[in-house]
Each structure stands twice: as structure tokens, then as C-alpha cells.
């Protein structure tokens, strides 16, 4: 049958707790094997959804993000509904459901209705291949990294549909921007992931975690540049500030979301967070060793480590959002093509060379630590040199104006007053 269906490691609920494993073992005795197997998968999916995705979405994504951003902006954030304002996301959802879902008269109604649904589906599908812990992956397919990339290229279509169908010029701007940005950022994104793939020699996410476990080093230490580029690219694809040009509030009102209201808007908003969380989980799995922590996973459940790392990466998303201004659309394009893409190619060259050396040394365990040290230094140098080459001259931008004592006419630059 297909690799999707034949993989022998489905989601195994037994890792989550003894109660469910007891139930399943009891069922195993009375029911046929396949039924119990599928039951375990379903329970595992529901459990992971209830235990991780939904709480993350609501309480880390919506509440935590607003609360943290509030603290960064010296305000309190939501603190009225429930204890510490924890029920705020639910109150928001109730409000959004009550609101009327408006559709402009000249809008393309069918497309406008379908777009939010299409936007939600990939966000759920993405979690299928992320390993929460040992054997705790819903579909452990051999090409899970490719699967993640493929599925995460789908929401672009939905956002484009949303922007185009509303028949609003701001929405159309958002649609144009997101389409052009995704074309530009897809290539450095895939190139940098290729670095991680070449290093670990697998395109299975479980395989990558296993690699990190085997060599006792996370991919990020050997591929620091790849993580940085991937983080920037994925922020661009997810429309997170500082690269949220598709829904840039101060420029094009809300971009492709301008004409949406009610729960249709809520789906876009909620799933934006869902995609950021999924990307955090992906970064954790590929670059930060997934559910392993240098042997600590023997004492702490792996899924707790995974969730902690995911939230840490998500905090980075929140932090950049709270701090940085937004780049212009053409600057973003130039950044992708002139800066990130060449750096990704350099990175790939370096890691391929290292992989070749490593192969000749018969994958000696110590060598990877040498690579890590070399790569960290090399990445810093590369970024700086390439930035200088691209015209990065901070010393040419004075941060203080000139001061003069007397009022008068024009004073050319360089003239003492």
C-alpha cells in the first residue's frame, strides 16, 4: 500500500499516560488489532489537539501573545475576563461568532467563502508530521520535511483568494504583495532547509530528531545561518511583523483581510497563530533536536521538552513582532534575492563540503563538533562580509543631527557652523 498508510509507527497514545494505555491494552484483548490501532491514532490525534494545539492556539497564541506584547508596550494586556484575563480568547471567539459576516456587493462570493476554510485546512494538516515525542507522531512518513513544505505552500493560495475576491483595492494590494513575496521567499527557505537535510542525510523529521539524539548536538549549532535565514523566511511567509507587508496595517489597512468580518476574519487571525506555532514546532524539530534534550528526556517526558522549545521559538516570533518596524515590499524582495539567497547557497556549499569530509572520515562523532565551531564563526563572518558587500554602512548614518547656535540659512553638510 502507500507509504502513508503502511508506516508502522502511527501515533501511539501509550506515551501520554498510563490510563489510556491501560484502556487500549484492555481493548486489544477484545477487539481486532486494526480497530485498536485506528482507535489509538484517533485518540492520539484528538489528545494532541486538545492537549497541545488548542491550548497553544488559545492561551499561548492569542492570550500569551497579547499579554506579552502588552508588557513590551508598557500596558497590561487582556486582564478582565476570567482569572488574569485567561478567558479573553473565548470571549473574543464568542464576540466574533456573533458578528455579522459581511460580504461586499461586488465581491466574488464563492471564493470569499471558501478562502477562510482553505486557510484553516493546511494549518491542521501541518501537525500530522511533527513528532511530539518518541513514537508520538501521527504520520511518520519518510518524506515528512517535504510534506511540511508542500502543505505550508497551500495557505498562500487561500490568502490570495481572500485578497482577490473581496474586490477591494487594499485587499488586492495585499494579494499582490503576498504572491510576490512567497515567490521570492520560497527559494531561500528551501535552500536553507537543504543545508539541514544534507547535514543529517534524511528528509524525515523523526530522522532528524534521531540524528540530533545520536550525535548529541542540535542542527542549529552546525547550521546557525540556516536557522536565521529560515526564521526570516518563515516570518515572511507567515506574514509576521517585521515582514507582514500583506496585511500591513499602517499602509494597506489590513491587506487581504480588509473586507472580512466576524468568524471568517477570526479564522484567518486564529490560523495565523496556528501557522506560527506549527513553524515553531518545525524549527524545534529540525534545528533544536525536537523532543530530545541531551539525555534529559529520560527524566522529563519528551513532549514537554518539545512544547517548551516550541514556545521558546514562538516567543521569538512575538518578540520580533513587538520590536521591529516593517520593511517595504521592494526592499523585502531585494533582501530575499540579494541577501538571503546567496547566503543560503554559501551555506549549502559549506555544509556539502563538510558532509563530504565527514563521509571520508566515516562519520566520526567528534568531527561534527569541529564543524559546529567552524560554522558558527564562518556564519558570522559571512553575514557581515555579505552585508558590507551589499552596502551595509551603519557608520554613514549619523543618529544625531547637527547642532547650530544661530538661526540662519542653509548649512551644507560638512560645513562647521
Amino acid at each position: 500500500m502507500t507509504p502513508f498508510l503502511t508506516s508502522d509507527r502511527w501515533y501511539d497514545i501509550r506515551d501520554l499516560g498510563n490510563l489510556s494505555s491501560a484502556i487500549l491494552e484492555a481493548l486489544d484483548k477484545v477487539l481486532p488489532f486494526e480497530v485498536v490501532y485506528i482507535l489509538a491514532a484517533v485518540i492520539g490525534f484528538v489528545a494532541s489537539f486538545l492537549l497541545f494545539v488548542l491550548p497553544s492556539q488559545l492561551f499561548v497564541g492569542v492570550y500569551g501573545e497579547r499579554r506579552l506584547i502588552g508588557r513590551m508596550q508598557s500596558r497590561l494586556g487582556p486582564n478582565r475576563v476570567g482569572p488574569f484575563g485567561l478567558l479573553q480568547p473565548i470571549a473574543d471567539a464568542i464576540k466574533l461568532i456573533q458578528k455579522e459576516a459581511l460580504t461586499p456587493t461586488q465581491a466574488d462570493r464563492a471564493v470569499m467563502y471558501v478562502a477562510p476554510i482553505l486557510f484553516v485546512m493546511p494549518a491542521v494538516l501541518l501537525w500530522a508530521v511533527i513528532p511530539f515525542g518518541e513514537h508520538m507522531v501521527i504520520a511518520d512518513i519518510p518524506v515528512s520535511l517535504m510534506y511540511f513544505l508542500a502543505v505550508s505552500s497551500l495557505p498562500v493560495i487561500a490568502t490570495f483568494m481572500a485578497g482577490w475576491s473581496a474586490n477591494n483595492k487594499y485587499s488586492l494590494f495585499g494579494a499582490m504583495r503576498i504572491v510576490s513575496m512567497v515567490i521570492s521567499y520560497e527559494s531561500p527557505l528551501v535552500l536553507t532547509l537543504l543545508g539541514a537535510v544534507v547535514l543529517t542525510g534524511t528528509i524525515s523529521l523523526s530522522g532528524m530528531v534521531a540524528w540530533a539524539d545520536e550525535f548529541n548536538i542540535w542542527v542549529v549549532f552546525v547550521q546557525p545561518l540556516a536557522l536565521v535565514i529560515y526564521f526570516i523566511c518563515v516570518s515572511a511567509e507567515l506574514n509576521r511583523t517585521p515582514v507582514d507587508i500583506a496585511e500591513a496595517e499602517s499602509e494597506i489597512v489590513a491587506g487581504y483581510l480588509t473586507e472580512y468580518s466576524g468568524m471568517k476574519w477570526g479564522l484567518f487571525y486564529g490560523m495565523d497563530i496556528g501557522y506560527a506555532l506549527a513553524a515553531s514546532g518545525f524549527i524545534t524539530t529540525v534545528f533544536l533536536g525536537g523532543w530530545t534534550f541531551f539525555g534529559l528526556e529520560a527524566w522529563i517526558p519528551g513532549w514537554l521538552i518539545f512544547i517548551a522549545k516550541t514556545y521558546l521559538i514562538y516567543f521569538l516570533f512575538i518578540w520580533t513582532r513587538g520590536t521591529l518596524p516593517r520593511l517595504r515590499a521592494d526592499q523585502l524582495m531585494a533582501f530575499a534575492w540579494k541577501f538571503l539567497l546567496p547566503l543560503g547557497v554559501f551555506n549549502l556549499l559549506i555544509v556539502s563540503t563538510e558532509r563530504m569530509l565527514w563521509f571520508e572520515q566515516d562519520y566520526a562523532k567528534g568531527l561534527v563538533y569541529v564543524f559546529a565551531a567552524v560554522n558558527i564563526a564562518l556564519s558570522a563572518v559571512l553575514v557581515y562580509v555579505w552585508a558590507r558587500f551589499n552596502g551595509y554602512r551603519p557608520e554613514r548614518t549619523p543618529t544625531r543631527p547637527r547642532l547650530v547656535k544661530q538661526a540662519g540659512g542653509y548649512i551644507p553638510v560638512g560645513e562647521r557652523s
Partner: protein
Amino acid sequence: MMDGFGPSLAFWVLAAITLVAAGGVMVSRNLLHAVLFLILTFVGVAGFFVLLSADFIAMAQVIIYVGAIAVLVLFAVLLTPRSSRDNSETRWAAPGILLAVCLAAIFLFVVHDTAWRTVDAAPANLSAASLGRALLSTWVVPFEIASVLLTAALVGAIMLTRSPEEEAEDALA
């Protein structure tokens, strides 16, 4: 081997989705709708690839066709003006469709009249790793030529779409 209810159901659903969506490309008057139907077709074909144990190809299909080509087409549609976004037929539509119908008849006849020698079990070495090995050993020359082709296409596309102002800007620089 394609036994069992699941693969059968998957096949029929995918066939329906793919062919209906392809028909949608044909009949929809709005060019944007046609592109959206085209994307659905691509996804359906990717589903077929999964069903045929070609998981790497399926993912590549989604990444390249949906993530890149369809987005490019959408972009091109946006760059052409609203007035030329209809998807109507030319005067020569009828002969073209007739030709396609005839061809379909021939194809179907050939497909169903030939006694194909088929195997039931999927071949063992259809994994991504063996594909990579094949690409870099047996097929390494076409592989390199394909990369040259891609580069040429990239450069060519950039040169084609440059506007006169940009040429002037570059001439000054």
C-alpha cells in the same frame, strides 16, 4: 495490491476531483477561477501520486505546481489588466475540442485494448533515497542539463519582463 476499500475510494474521489476541476478550467469564464480550478487539479494529481507510492514526487508536485507555478500564473493574471481576464474560447474552439475528443477516444481504446503486464505489489525501491541515487548516477547528465535549463529560463524570464525604463536605468548605472 490496490485492494481494500480505502485505496479504491481514494482513487474514485481523486478521479472525480481531478477531472471535474480540469473541466472547471475549461468552462469557467473568469480566468482567476480557472486558475483556482487548475490548482485543485494539481492537488488531485498529487493525491494520485501518493496512491501510486510516489510520495516524493507527490510532495514535489505540490511544492512546484501549487507553490510555484500556480502562484506564478496568478501573478501573471494580476499583471494583465482586468479587461483581458476573461477565459473565452477562440473561433477555432470547435475543431480543437473535436480533435481532443477524437484523441481521447483513441487513448481510451488503446488503454483498454492492450493487455498490460502488471505487477500487484509495489516495486520495493521507489523511495526518495533511490530516486536521488538514480538522479545522481544514471541520470546525472540530464540532471545537470536540467539545472542549466532552469538557470537559462530564470535569466530569460528576467530579460523578457524588463521594462524600457529599467533598461534605461541600467544603462545609466
